[in-house]
């Protein structure tokens, strides 16, 4: 799992212990608005957590699988707020999908992911807007093999992404169909 998200989960647990409640919220299988821009309609229950510009949903735990929604990255922002964000690729409005896929790979690299391969980059609508899809394989910093798929697009000058990742062994496939259905359900508000 990503450094930022794992840190968020640790913080969430600590906050939960202190406050007597967790920051997780239940995502019911019904239409839900993301970033006030579009809706998705999950067919199963997920647990959700917000980490800055990312909303993270998981079933079995974010270290095993997660679908993450980037809620509008502004021009000049890096994908993740890491300690080395200054030297990382920044999102630029005119970026072509090939460059956005590079931005995704670079962002993942900034949180410790290694041996990233982006494959099958292709144009695909993000809701009704122009967008792209791609597939990913990578290793976590501890060497665990993971797979992923991403959908994204630039709308109103901001980058929106949906990233589904899971362990190559079992978890990616276990929830891939649900994640795909969520991506297909994207409708602009």
């Amino acid at each position, binding site marked *: 799992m990503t450094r930022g998200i794992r840190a968020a989960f640790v913080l969430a647990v600590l906050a939960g212990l202190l406050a007597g409640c967790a920051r997780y919220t239940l995502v019911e299988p019904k239409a839900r608005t993301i970033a006030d821009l579009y809706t998705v309609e999950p067919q199963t229950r997920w647990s959700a957590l917000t980490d800055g510009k990312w909303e993270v949903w998981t079933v079995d735990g974010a270290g095993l699988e997660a679908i993450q929604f980037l809620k509008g990255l502004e021009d000049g922002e890096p994908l993740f707020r890491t300690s080395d964000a200054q*030297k990382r690729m920044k999102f630029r409005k005119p970026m*072509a999908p090939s460059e956005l896929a590079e931005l995704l790979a670079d962002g993942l690299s900034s949180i410790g992911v*290694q*041996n*990233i391969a982006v494959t099958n*980059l292709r144009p695909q609508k993000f809701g009704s807007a122009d967008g792209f899809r791609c597939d990913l394989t990578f290793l976590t910093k501890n060497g665990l093999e993971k797979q992923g798929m991403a959908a994204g697009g630039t709308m109103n000058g901001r980058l929106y992404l949906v990233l589904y990742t899971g362990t190559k062994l079992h978890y990616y496939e276990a929830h891939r169909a649900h994640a795909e259905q969520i991506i297909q359900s994207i409708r602009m508000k």
Partner: protein
Amino acid sequence: MNGPASLLVVLAVFAVTACATPRGAPGALSDVRPAQRPTLDSDEAGLWMQMDRVEQGLRTSGHLVTDTAVRTYLRDILCKLATDYCPDIRLYVVQTPHFNASMAPNGVMQVWTGLLLRADNEAQLAYVLGHELGHYLRRHSVQRWRDVRTKTNVTAVFTVLTAAAGHGYIGSLAQLVALGSIMQFSRDNEREADEIGFELMVRAGYDPREASKVWESLDKERRAGKDSDPLIFFATHPPTDERIDTLKELARKTYTPDRDWTDGRQAYLKAVRPLRATLLRDELRLRDFARTQVLLARLVAAEPASGQLHFFQGELYRLRNDDGDPARALESYERALATGGAPPETNRAAGLLLMRRGEKDRARAAFDRYLTEAPDAEDKSMIHAYLEQLR
């Protein structure tokens, strides 16, 4: 002289001439013998046990390079140097873009791909492997372990070792640096390993003048880099003027033009070239552009006719994207294409830059060339979409 005898003689010579710790002095350790394992009730056995756990994690790590050719190549160099100690050493090639090689007391040697990318030739690789063998043969880890144990909190040391073991040894860089600081050898140990490494490479017939060049190249990169990502090897192997001067002096005394020395450049290129595009992509992901620029300049100077290297220079400029970089990137891509041997991605990268600049005709031509050279490219449908936009 060759085979086991030669290595034992090397050790014997150092035992009486070059050791920082006199053999037989109180607390001094004898050299490790072939197939030797520590007795079970010793502290050294405890250290080995920890390292065996580390090795278990390493063995199943997804970071290991699986390319058989390069692993066999490195193993052959290692065995040429280690002679009858060869069966005691397990060599792991780890895909990580930092320059590093390390040797654990139980015989685990790691070579990181950042080293493969940076060595100029086989002689330089042999010197680094020989240096690490020197630590193993002289049991420097055990010396260091005993030294640290008397000075610091033993529990803390074991905690770091165990944490490293739990994370397959190649977990986070922070863990590695922490481990390195504990397992860091003394300057005397380093000096001794340098001399053993030098002697081993010489006995294997490698050009002795190559040893000091390893440190000189690294030092240039270190000076250029921002050091935000530490070159881990520096933490434990500072490229000081002293060690460079010492190795140069040793080479001056050793090198004779009448002997048939080899730098093994061609064998090195044959083994490493198939991996080089992957290694350079990994290197660029570190985004330490100043350091990578020094590295690429050195590689290009050695192979000015490599379209692949000019392409990666272009990639550096494109990704850095400072003022004037897009134009520099395009120049590099054009040079790569003119030189020959450039990967198909050169045309795609040029097409993206030209599309951004609004040069539709040139962008279209570049994308067309890309699809001609790579008709089954993973991103071909995306490129077709760009071509549609450019109509």
